[in-house]
């Protein structure tokens, strides 16, 4: 087929409209690669179609830009926070005073958090004492004894790591306490399809904050993950990953409005749409 015959055949129009089979499209691509006339005709048709599409160009409403950029920034933050979720958080010692108000909180989880916090505090003191001893031992050691020095340094490093973990747990416990004490939070229970268990969720409608208590959730396979969805006006929004069997409340992506919350089991990786056939627990709000 000559260039002109191909151009007059109408196949190029169908190619540009995406209406050819893969094999037919491949033939056109081969023909156009070595043929300036065919190539030019395709480009002209593509430009014409683009011009038609651009007739519907419309500036998005005011405010969309901020939302889109904030959403993109939040997605980046979520990715980064997931990667660094186990890193060090700064200890705020003054928050221990909150423990004194424990009697005001009636939630069943509160005693567990208080006990855990106290154990964490004792452990922190204990590890500090041990580290001080290790430091003293290190000072007293003969500087020529390199093996002993190395051993002490390793012990010190281990103790530091343990302290970091304790600090992190303590911070999580204190944050959980804050949520449980805050009257702005409403406790909502997501219920499994068979009704045998519930997953508590705490939602602050005034600022959109959401926390999930995944302490009693089941473990899932390594390649699976629990995903929380906030449904508003029928549209599900990914509110983040819930880690099962974590004893502290987990902060999720906030939402000011919701008509339902659902936990689904998804394959690990980027999840943009819920697999509602794999619902783990859900609740529709009245």
């Amino acid at each position, binding site marked *: 087929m000559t260039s002109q015959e191909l151009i007059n055949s*109408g196949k190029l*129009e*169908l190619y*540009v*409209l*995406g*209406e050819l089979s893969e094999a037919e499209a491949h033939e056109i691509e081969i023909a156009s690669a070595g043929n300036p006339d065919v190539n030019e005709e395709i480009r*002209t*048709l*593509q*430009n*014409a*179609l*683009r*011009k*038609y*599409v*651009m*007739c*519907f*160009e*419309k*500036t*998005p*409403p005011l405010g*969309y*830009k901020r*939302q*889109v*950029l904030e*959403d*993109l920034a939040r*997605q*980046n933050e979520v990715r980064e926070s997931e990667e660094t979720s186990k890193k060090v958080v700064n200890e705020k010692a003054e928050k221990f005073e909150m423990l004194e108000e424990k009697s005001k909180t009636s939630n069943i989880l509160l005693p567990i958090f208080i006990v855990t916090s106290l154990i964490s505090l004792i452990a922190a003191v204990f590890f500090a004492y041990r580290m001080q001893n290790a430091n003293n031992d290190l000072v007293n050691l003969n500087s020529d004894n390199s093996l002993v020095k190395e051993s002490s340094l390793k012990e010190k490093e281990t103790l530091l790591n343990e302290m970091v973990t304790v600090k992190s747990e303590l911070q999580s416990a204190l944050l959980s306490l804050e949520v449980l004490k805050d009257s702005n939070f409403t406790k909502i229970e997501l219920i499994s399809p068979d009704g045998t268990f519930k997953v508590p969720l705490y939602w602050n409608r005034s600022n959109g904050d959401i926390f999930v208590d995944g302490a009693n959730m089941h473990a899932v396979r390594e390649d699976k993950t629990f995903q929380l969805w906030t449904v508003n*006006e*029928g*549209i599900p929004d990914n509110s983040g990953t819930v880690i099962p069997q974590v004893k502290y409340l987990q902060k999720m992506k906030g939402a000011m409005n919701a008509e339902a919350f659902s936990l689904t089991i998804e394959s690990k990786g*980027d999840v*943009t*749409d819920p697999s509602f056939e794999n619902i783990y627990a859900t609740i529709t709000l009245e």
Partner: protein
Amino acid sequence: MANTAKEKIQQDHIPEEALVGLLKGKDQKALEYLYDHYSPAVFGIVLRIANSEKAAEKIFKEVFSEILKRITEFNHKTEKFFDWLLRIARSTALELVSKRGFKQNNLSDIVQLKVQEGILGNTEPAVSRDFLNNLNPEQKHYLDLIYFQGLTIDQIAEKFNQPANAVRNKAKAALHMLKALHS
């Protein structure tokens, strides 16, 4: 290289290749540049496909997210950035609409209605209005079914109970008319 590109952003002009490089690095100014220069095109496609402001808002955000997620796939040697962007926006919006079951009305009727009501005419440049007005309703109908509803020739033939060959010829004629108007 990055500094040079950033300087160009400040001058409100950046070559596509440099823009793509900065977007891959999640550069905030590049993101804003992308939005400022390309969001009307993307929103226009999304709105036509979703056919509802509310659904379009949600899909529009996800389309932008998808564009950035797939920015590493873009190859400037095989495609213009603008064409790639429109292709990703269209395919993502069609996929999301299909997955979530948003109902698409007869788009060509809406095109006609918008032109008649002056909605489209009031917001679009005169050159676009002329371009659209030179297409007859049937031509718009077929272009919309294919581009904005993502239907194949066979699906259109079945939906409107017409021979596939007749639909194919009408689609070709519509694009041919676009070409004539364009040139």
